[in-house]
């Protein structure tokens, strides 16, 4: 019975189609995710001109900012 089912499925291409569709979907999803990630990193890189310096990710008080202790170009805003 199993062999018969497999033969029918193969001849109708059902199983293969489902499998291919799943893989295609997964690949598209991965590509989309990778693109989103790349876009975000590229966006971040633009903030930090040559990628060669210090970037402040978080600072708990704005006191230092008010007094200009942190130059505005090194503050990263998400």
């Amino acid at each position, binding site marked *: 019975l199993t062999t018969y089912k497999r033969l029918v499925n193969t001849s109708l291409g059902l199983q293969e189609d489902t499998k291919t569709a799943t893989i295609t979907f997964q690949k598209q999803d991965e590509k989309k995710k990778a693109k989103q*990630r790349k876009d975000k*990193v590229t966006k971040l*890189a633009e903030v*930090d001109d040559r*990628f060669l310096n210090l970037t402040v990710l*978080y600072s*708990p008080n704005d006191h230092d900012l008010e007094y*200009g202790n*942190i130059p505005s170009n090194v503050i990263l805003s998400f």
Partner: protein
Amino acid sequence: VTSNSICAVHGLNGNAFDTWMADNGRMWLHDFLPKDPPFDRSRIMTFGYESTLVDTRKLTDRFEDYADQLIREIIRLRGSNPTRKRPIIFVCHSMGGLVARLAMTRMHSLPNKFKGLSLEECGILFLSTPHLGSLQADRSPFIVALGEGLVGLRTGVVKELQSFNASSVDNTDMFQAMKVKPVFQCFCESEPTRVLAKDRLVRHLILSKNFNNSVIGCNSSLSWVFESECREDIGYRSSYSL
């Protein structure tokens, strides 16, 4: 009030952001750490430098330049008196640890050049840092020269990473001999990390004299920490508890 500073230094082939970011775009240094006391009172920074293994633009591969840049940038941000006395913890991944360690020894040997940051205020977390190089970087000089000619392999970086290379050995000795030394802790992985589509247990030569006593095996792969997608992820939680 800000109580301390944290500065992340990425490793080989990384960058200031991507190294610390998960696939869903969350960066634990930015998205999780500020929500967990006492780090909600920390200023968190990330340092970027050219760490690519292959590059045809003939960039500097002198680690001294990166180390100097790191200190200069930090001093630039610590303009006022209260901020100058604020402790700073360097969180360094792999090769980033070599840059930070070199920065410390340079601060020690050239105190007049780097005013505004003292060794007493510094602490370092070495995450899988190859203090004495890595066996994985050991390639014959012919192959390295060939790589340089064909694809722009940065030979300076390769040499700094080779096992028991003169520069690393000297700098390790200098670090250990410093009279005033930053507080430091070394961590190594005990679970494999996915590198080039293969699970590998990254083993570096980190054991050496005094360093030997301060190596803690993380009961995880470091990628669990760096690629934590939410605050509840076990990688982030376990590292945070350390």
